[in-house]
């Protein structure tokens, strides 16, 4: 492929085995400039290995990677300033404050200390500038880690499970940071095992399992391609099961002690009928998600 002027990353049929384990088993995809690209899958799917091969940290057994038109392995010093890699949240110098960490890493790229303040602002850690790294919370450390990956203003940013092990509030804070990075025009490649998160953040996702890419598209297209029915849930007692089954577009009706669920492929008609009856109390509409896509692709429930 010679189209690497257009594409930020071209991954062509890469393989990597550790003993008998095929960590990455024939993965190919391309990532465009400015794209927010997600690699998702459960733990052990091969996401991290694929990422490390793209970063040039590991050599693939087979296949090739072009990063901004260059093979990243072995280490290419000229390429390094153009990529930013977020590492595990402990990859800091001992006993240094948040600002000092950033200034140190900035200096490695010949970037002045002014960038440090800007990065702290971006990840919302300005008030923690003088706090030592070991005194930060888990979410704050993750954000500092991302700031360190961005401090030299790279074109491509690799983030490996940035939201893992964070509480829901911290995760949402981090989403804002990730969106802000994308608005700066960066190409982002990120791995996660949270499918809901990928659905919200990513332009395109590659679903990986057991070293292979099972599907690759925009989250919406993947879900649409599933052609799964919508599920409309009502409070128990709002409607009898017989009445529900008689509604237009109702395919299947199930009930438990709290609720009544109607499965439909034409939710618009069914919702209109419900509105006419005035039975919208506690109504929830659930359409298919990436979890359903995963279930469909692998035949197993998704377990992160």
């Amino acid at each position, binding site marked *: 492929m010679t189209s690497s002027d257009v594409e930020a990353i071209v991954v062509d049929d890469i393989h990597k085995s550790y003993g008998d384990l095929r960590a990455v088993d024939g993965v190919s995809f391309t990532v465009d400039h400015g794209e927010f690209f997600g690699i998702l899958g459960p733990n052990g799917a091969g996401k991290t290995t694929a990422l490390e091969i793209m*970063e040039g940290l590991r050599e693939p057994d087979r296949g090739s990677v072009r990063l901004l038109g260059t093979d990243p392995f072995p280490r290419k010093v000229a390429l*390094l300033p153009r990529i930013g*890699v977020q590492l595990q949240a402990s990859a800091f110098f001992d006993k240094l404050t948040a600002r000092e960490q950033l200034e*140190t890493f900035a200096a*490695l*790229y010949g970037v002045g200390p002014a960038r440090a303040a800007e990065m702290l602002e971006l990840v919302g850690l300005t008030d923690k500038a003088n706090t030592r790294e070991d005194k930060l919370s888990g979410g704050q450390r993750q954000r500092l880690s991302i700031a360190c990956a961005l401090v030299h203003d790279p074109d491509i940013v690799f983030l490996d499970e940035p939201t893992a092990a964070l509480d829901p509030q911290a995760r949402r804070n981090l989403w804002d940071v990730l969106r802000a990075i994308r608005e700066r025009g960066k190409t982002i490649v990120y791995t996660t095992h949270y499918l809901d998160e990928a659905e919200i953040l990513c332009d395109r996702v590659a679903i990986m399992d057991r070293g292979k890419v099972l599907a690759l598209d925009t989250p919406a297209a993947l879900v649409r391609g599933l052609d799964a029915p919508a599920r409309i849930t009502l409070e128990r007692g709002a409607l009898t099961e017989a009445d529900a089954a008689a509604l237009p577009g109702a395919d299947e009706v199930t009930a438990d002690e709290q609720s009544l669920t109607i499965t439909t492929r034409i939710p618009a008609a069914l919702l209109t009928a419900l509105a006419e009856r005035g039975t919208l109390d506690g109504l929830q509409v659930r359409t298919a998600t990436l979890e359903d896509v995963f279930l469909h692709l692998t035949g197993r429930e998704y377990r992160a």
Partner: protein
Amino acid sequence: MKGAFKSLAVAMAKSFVRDRATLFFAFVFPLMFLVIFGLLFRDIGTEKIKLGAYGDGAVITALERSGVVELERFDTAAAGEAKVRDGDLPGIVEATGDTVVLRFAASDQAQAGTVQGLVSGITQQLNVAASGKPAKYDFRAEQVEDSSLKSIQYLTPGILSWGIAVTAVFGAAITLVNWRRKQVLRRLRLAPIGIAPILTSRVVVTIGVAIAQALLFVGVALLPVFGLTLAGTWWLSIPVFLSGVLAFFSIGMLVGAFCKTEEAATGAANIVVLPMAFLSGTFFPIDLAPQWLQAVSKVFPLRHMNDGVTDFLVRGKGAEALLLPCGVLLGFTLVVSFIASRVFTWEES
């Protein structure tokens, strides 16, 4: 890249200064040994021989003036003899008229010999003087060692070398393991810098810490209470000192290259440093050890650093004595660094 070197050195120096445990083991711990041993052995070698005395006369007076014995006077010869018999005194000098009798306990032969030689020597000197003739044979006693009777003179170079060795080995090893485990090494590898600024910044910090240690230990030893006296060529110990720091830094790098966890690195560093400390003359002069042990200790870089620093700091040797310790230490550095570079890995697996 100069900026990378400087920022890494500053980061490492800050990590060091902000870690209380590291500071303790680098500065306070060796200093404790220096103070304790320095005070404990302060009077060794200056203790005087005790001798009983009965009666008086020229010999007793001369003995008293000699300053090498401490006389204990008795009113009767029998009382003094009883003390000698009990082993409380090595001997008693009984001077009656022109007769001098030394009664001694033969149980401690070394002491018996010393007091006999002393008393007979002084008596003969007086005899010569009384004869009015000039002495035919001229006799002078000259000490061959400098002032090495004082223990602080060998304690200071010993504890200085040991303290610096421990800090350099542990500092380098733990930093390397910790950085690898925490992926700091990966972060450095992903930055557009070479190995040189990483390595040199660590070496510079190690040398800086070693200099601070040396200033502290020598400064304390120079206090009147310990009484270290520096030889005229003390400044020639600086090249030996620096070669030693490099040698121990390279050992730390090797340990850090081998070990995957901090615990393993601590254990391995102890295995390397502890035997060296005991067999290289840190706490007692190695000259007192059996011959074979002295030979074994020659394989340790600490022995050469210790000897080299002692030669210049307190023995006042000339520049030609630099060759052996510096040569051995730098050669050691080269060999160990080479092995470390072969074993080293950036990543854990």
